[in-house]
């Protein structure tokens, strides 16, 4: 999962990208050395994505892939990773949105494969998500130092 994001970030030359759940929880992220308040970005991105999706539904749209904000300095892109995740990308406004969109689509496809494993019954227990390739035994046992 981390590799997919890194690859996506490198190819699209993003300043920041994160995979999050629609609840706002950030599963994984990659960034330039800048300081980013990741939790905060997650909460705001999920809120914005959910709002635009709900608006578009009320406007009669049936499908929803995401949305884009063109900035002077940096632009934002939110892209769906079905069934319940999304990809947040932040990038310099000089970068063509089409490129980001293209690579976001690819990354979304690849991430869906990982996420299916995480959310299927044999993956994480019900009501819980896990990020990375952690085995549950590892959590249950106290970590010895």
């Amino acid at each position, binding site marked *: 999962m981390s590799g997919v994001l890194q690859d996506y970030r490198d190819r699209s030359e993003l300043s920041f990208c994160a995979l999050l759940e629609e609840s*706002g*929880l950030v599963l994984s992220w990659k960034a330039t050395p800048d300081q980013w308040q990741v*939790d905060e970005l997650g909460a705001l991105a999920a809120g914005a994505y959910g709002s635009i999706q709900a608006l578009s539904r009320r406007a009669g749209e049936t499908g929803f892939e995401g949305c884009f904000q063109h900035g002077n300095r940096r632009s934002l892109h939110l892209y769906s990773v079905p069934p319940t995740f999304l990809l947040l990308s932040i990038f310099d406004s000089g970068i063509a949105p089409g490129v980001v969109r293209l690579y976001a689509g690819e990354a979304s496809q690849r991430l869906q494969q990982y996420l299916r494993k995480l959310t299927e019954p044999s993956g994480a227990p019900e009501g819980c998500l896990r990020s990375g390739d952690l085995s549950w035994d590892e*959590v249950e046992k106290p970590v010895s130092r």
Partner: protein
Amino acid sequence: MALLNHENREVVFKVVYCGPGLSGKTTNLNYIYSCIDAGQRGDLVSLSTSTDRTIFFDFLPINAVILNGYSTKFQLYTVPGQVMYNATRQLVLRGADGIVFVADSQSELLEENVRSFQNMEQNIAWNHGALDRIPMVLQYNKRDLLNAAPVQHLEYLLNRRAQRVTSYEAVASEGYNVFATLNAISQLVLHRFYQVIGVGEDQEGSRVEEALSPVAQARTGGATAMAG
């Protein structure tokens, strides 16, 4: 939905403060924010109008403690109480691991509390299925006001399901029982998490205590004794 992040070795939980408009949800978060060390929390984000009413949510991330090498984090949200913001309430409730219902104790507002509670139940049904499956704590706020209804009355209206939940009398504006409420919901959320991942009851007990001591220690000033 709790998130276990292997990369950063952390477990993250989402706790949502619900309740009617002006019941004191934002006041709870402000108080928590003001008591916890900057190193133990992030910034408080408020999406509010110029008149200070929450229009989308308030958001405050806090760190609890290292559990088995994993740091536990709680993300606290409030929802806007006003009727017209139902769509955003539904969004904020997505993936909630725990709920604090902040009721306004004023006698004149009893009906509003009930309506808000029912609305929350519907929104949870829309998101998850059933309220019974999400840990919840009730907070009867504004106990300092002369027109506060008797607690038994509030209990009767809001806490008579088969599975009764813990409730606290609070004065959020003075910090009274704000941390007691937060500790209670955090414990329930962790308890549920351990049930889900299948950790035994006795093992779990000590860990929950351990997890919450920093939050408890973060209480400064104000009366914070547990209710009841």
